[in-house]
């Protein structure tokens, strides 16, 4: 199937130097989007920005309140506006995973700061730009990366699962509240992937049974394309017909 083109679409991705985030940077660049990515580690940001020349790297920590507007300013400065925000950066909570009874409060707080409060702040700060894009009929999408742990209470996944459940619930409420502004909110579970986060959670997992982040990134791009205004889907449908 032909991949839907994102030329001219401005995309920001948090947690963009590893795992699914890095795969998303590559996927959206490959589809022609203008991409800015955020990560905490300055060396990682420089490395990815150098490897993929067209991507704008931003050093920042989404869990840190002070960084919120610094990140937003650089995203908007680099891209001149924003159509798609992907809140991908995640914190697993205690590593190795712990029973809730053995979980340090600080580990829970960090998971909530990175997985819930951080995406909330960044979304709120960038909402003006996203709504402006929607008013200009470009469409606007916020995709929050979720997990099956957000719906199923797996033992030892308490900090992560509770934070992802909260993020998923926020996403569903955002989607209802912003419907009149035409900013779409999507909660997306990419499934179990072969990433550093998954290895930290389940070191003994059989890698061959895990999804490749590249495949999940492609699914994310297709889900977002489907939520952008109709012309994009129709032009793709036309392209698909031509190739058929």
């Amino acid at each position: 199937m032909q991949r839907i083109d994102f030329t001219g679409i401005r995309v920001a991705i948090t947690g963009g130097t590893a795992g699914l985030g890095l795969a998303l940077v590559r996927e959206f660049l490959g589809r022609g989007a203008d991409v800015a990515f955020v990560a905490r580690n300055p060396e990682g940001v420089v490395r990815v920005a150098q490897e993929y020349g067209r991507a704008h790297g931003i050093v920042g920590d989404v869990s840190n309140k002070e960084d919120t507007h610094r990140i937003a300013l650089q995203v908007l400065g680099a891209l001149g506006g924003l159509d798609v925000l992907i809140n991908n950066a995640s914190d697993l909570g205690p590593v190795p995973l712990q029973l809730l009874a053995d979980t340090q409060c600080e580990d829970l707080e960090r998971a909530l700061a990175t997985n819930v409060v951080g995406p909330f702040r960044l979304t709120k700060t960038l909402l003006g730009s996203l709504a402006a894009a929607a008013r200009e009929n470009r469409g606007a999408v916020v995709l929050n990366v979720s997990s099956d742990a957000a719906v199923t209470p797996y033992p030892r996944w308490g900090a992560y699962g509770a934070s992802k459940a909260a993020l998923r619930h926020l996403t569903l409420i955002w989607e209802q509240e912003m419907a009149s502004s035409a900013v779409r909110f999507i909660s997306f579970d990419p499934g179990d992937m072969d990433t550093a986060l998954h290895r930290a959670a389940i070191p003994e997992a059989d890698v061959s049974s895990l999804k490749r982040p590249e495949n999940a990134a492609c699914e994310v791009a297709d889900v977002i394309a489907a939520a952008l205004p109709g012309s994009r889907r129709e032009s793709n449908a036309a392209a698909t017909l031509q190739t058929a």
Partner: protein
Amino acid sequence: MIAASEPVQRPGDAKLLFVRRNGFLEHRPREDWVRVLQPGDLVIANDAATLPASLSGTHLPSRRAIEVRLAARRSLEPTRVDHFTAIVFGAGDFRTRTEERAPPPALTAGDELELGQLHATVERLLDHPRLAMLHFRGSPGEIWAGIARHGKPVQYAHIAKPLAIFDTWSAIAASPAAFEPPSAGFVLSWATVGSLAARGIEFATLTHAAGLSSTGDPRLDARLPLDEPYNIPTVTAEAISRIRAQNGRIVAIGTTVVRALEDAAWANGKVPAGRGLARLRIGPETRLRVVDALLSGTHENGTSHHELLRAFVPRRVLLRMDEQLDAHGYRTHEFGDSVLVERSGLRLEGP
């Protein structure tokens, strides 16, 4: 008037002085502002986000401390951030009123400035020892990162604690283009934006790079506002022409919206989409071509914002407004109360 000293964008007790077309004045709670508009109106707000435009650092030739306040940029193009017009102060900070701030070391073309991780050169002075064109070195990404990480919002001596950047962004803030907040937009919450649609009132935005409102120097203040770039989206230009064709009114949220729209319409009364540079100064002699009503903060006599109101109402109405604002304890400045002024149906006097 009283200076608003708390950085709360929508205080529960905010007041509104509503000035009707016939010159009739009415005091209302500010939350009523949507109620006094009419179905079929078009509300236009400035969605400029505010830059942290205050950069502290060192004037390298003299090794003396300075504060640079970015004041204007020629373009809204995100990649064109290498040149800024700036006002330079000597040592000290916002706790000293701008009127009393020390002058900068004598600035000369070619002087190097170190501002956190940013490096700038004085390209030339602009007919005043405090006002200079600065050239910033580095890629656009490096300059944005330097401003984002090192800059602080321009602070006000009348506000007790330092403003955080989130205090200066309105709910709809989008393009980082303003040097001080387009603060009339603080009336907007997302619930308010929703309530406009529910009343049959359209909502649109433009981006106007609101510059510094005051420098503390009478000679410089007389030159304000500086030229300010703006951008009018196609959907906004279309909405304006549709609403005007239906005899609806154009309601500007803030003086910056008035300046952008009237500047754009200067040539032939029509508002084209696209970018422009507002040079127009609006005052008693300006014949407004687009804007029918203005929701704004309260402004003190002698400021360029106050002067702009004279394009909307005759002097005698403005005098009565000022009396009422004083008598009823309205708060002024960025986080203060508001006025909603309909363009007068009365004859406007000359200057």
